[in-house]
């Protein structure tokens, strides 16, 4: 364990059952098993955890403050850096919030493409959980298997967006570009084989005796406490509460798809693992349906007060022969400039929440009618979920803390914002 250990108090006793000696152990912030820069001050009695206090803020970049200083369009790229394991989910959620505030309705094709991006991101994020979660506990093989599929998803994102991370792909009222046929074919190929791959992870873990010993009955949280603590997403569903914003407050095109909410029964680390495994299968189902039903048409909304003009209409620069693009006009370039710098969103306030891979990701935007938000609040699921850590770890052994951290599946970029 990294960090320093110091003895706090104490009257030493050799009596059996003497519990006076407590030790404070510092875990993190640079420990690999803390999944980023989380520091936990653990109070130990022998090897048993008496208390665990997470210390956060090492990655605080002031995203909410930046949200007040940048225009609505400029802030999109910052959303990528919240939960960087599922960037597209964040940017799409942000754009949907602004659309809700401005009263923009995006075309059906855009909604479907967003669903595809969302679900691919969710799978990528859960694959990180399965891989690193198992790696933390000592099962290194799963990591390589899950990373293989994650790599495929990143290749798909590369095809669609041109980046492997931090895509900045969503736009207010649409998406940056339509998917190419090549990308759609790659997604189709991925969905066809993915179910089998999940079987592969399950083969390595689900009935693995060591995985059971390390996860069953560890970090138990009962449904009432979970709800009271504000948990959401797979962490809440692991305790048996069937709550999924994709079903309960449908956004994008989720009401068109047929899928289930996997829930656990015991609320321990193992159930949270099972929920995520099942969710990957469900996401895959949604992907297959979305590809099948994908409507044709535009991807940008009509409202040109807030929505960017099509890329091919922008008169930017000529090619090496001095030829300008055929359809390009100067007026559209001016419009693009105006929209980016001066899209004035009508005054009001809106809270929009989506089911991100970690739980309920909410954006609360207060607009005063200018081109930048008066207040941009990011309600990140990881931040609220992390509160459950102390209660889950208490009474377990120090090595179980690592299993609990992994099963909570938080991302520090989103915790600290």
């Amino acid at each position, binding site marked *: 364990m990294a960090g320093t250990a110091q003895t706090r108090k104490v009257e030493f006793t050799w009596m059996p059952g003497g519990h006076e000696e407590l030790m404070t152990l510092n875990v993190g912030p640079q420990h690999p098993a803390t999944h980023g820069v989380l520091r936990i001050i653990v109070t130990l009695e022998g090897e048993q955890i008496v208390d665990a206090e997470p210390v956060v803020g090492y990655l605080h970049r002031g995203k*909410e403050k930046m949200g007040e200083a940048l225009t609505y369009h400029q802030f999109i790229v910052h959303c990528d850096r919240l939960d960087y394991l599922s960037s597209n989910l964040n940017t799409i959620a942000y754009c949907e919030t602004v659309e809700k505030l401005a009263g923009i309705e995006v075309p059906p094709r855009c909604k479907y493409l967003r669903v595809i991006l969302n679900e691919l991101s969710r799978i990528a994020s859960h694959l990180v959980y399965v891989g690193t979660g198992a790696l933390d506990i000592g099962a290194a093989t799963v990591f390589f298997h899950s990373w293989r599929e994650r790599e495929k998803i990143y290749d798909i994102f590369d095809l669609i967006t041109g980046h492997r991370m931090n895509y900045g792909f969503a736009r207010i009222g649409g998406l940056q570009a339509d998917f190419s046929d090549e990308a759609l074919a790659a997604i189709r190929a991925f969905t066809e084989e993915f179910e089998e791959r999940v079987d592969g992870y399950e083969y390595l873990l689900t009935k693995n005796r060591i995985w059971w010993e390390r996860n069953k009955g560890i970090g138990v949280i009962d449904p009432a406490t979970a709800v*009271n603590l*504000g948990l959401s997403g797979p962490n809440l569903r692991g305790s048996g509460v069937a709550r999924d914003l994709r079903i309960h407050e449908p956004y994008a095109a989720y009401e068109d798809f047929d899928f289930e909410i996997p829930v656990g029964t015991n609320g321990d680390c193992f159930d949270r693992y099972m929920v995520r495994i099942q969710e990957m299968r469900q996401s895959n189902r949604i992907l297959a349906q979305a590809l099948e039903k994908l409507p044709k048409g535009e991807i940008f909304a009509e409202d040109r007060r807030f929505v960017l003009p099509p890329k091919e209409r922008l008169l930017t620069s000529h090619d090496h022969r001095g030829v300008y693009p055929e359809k390009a006009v100067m007026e559209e370039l001016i419009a693009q400039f105006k929209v980016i710098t001066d899209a004035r969103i009508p005054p009001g306030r*809106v809270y929009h929440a989506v089911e991100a891979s970690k739980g309920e990701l*909410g954006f609360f935007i207060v607009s005063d009618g200018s081109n930048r938000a008066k207040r941009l609040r990011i309600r990140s699921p990881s931040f*609220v979920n992390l509160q459950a850590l102390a209660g889950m770890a208490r009474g377990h052994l120090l090595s179980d803390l690592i299993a609990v951290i992994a099963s909570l599946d938080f991302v520090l970029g989103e915790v600290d914002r």
Partner: protein
Amino acid sequence: MEERRARLEALTRELQEKFGERVAPMEDSRDMPGFQVASGILLAVCRFLAEEASIRFEQLTDVTAVDEFPAEPRFRLVYHLLSLSSNKRLRLQVLLGGEDPVVDSVTGVWAGADWLEREAWDMFGIRFEGHPGLKRILMPLDYTHFPLRKDFPVRGIDPGRHYRDWDRGRKA
């Protein structure tokens, strides 16, 4: 839609029967029903909504504030509640003066309010009376400013200061 409105009206009646004029529906809250609550009765209203009301709000989703600087009352404290049993959301708003913004903590009602209130303290300097450990959460412990206030510059107040300095200050 009709049923929704009926239930909302029932909730409004319930609240107004119990708390009178100190709880008023918010006109400008269009995405979800909202109530403006007098700061003194916030805790009572929250306890009522979580434990007695016809729609139970079991979860506190978010606590945050909006700085109206230089207007007074300066802070709008916003609570977003969620009812899992009836799939409804509710917004509560409390107005607080800029001089010494203080309000009762709701950690006794929803344990999840702990970090959210700490964040509101950290960012806006709003004190939550009765909070079990109200200390900074995202900013360094010895930080003296409240960064999300409107009078705090975007680029920060002492940008040259690094982690090492505040860590030294914290240990001292």
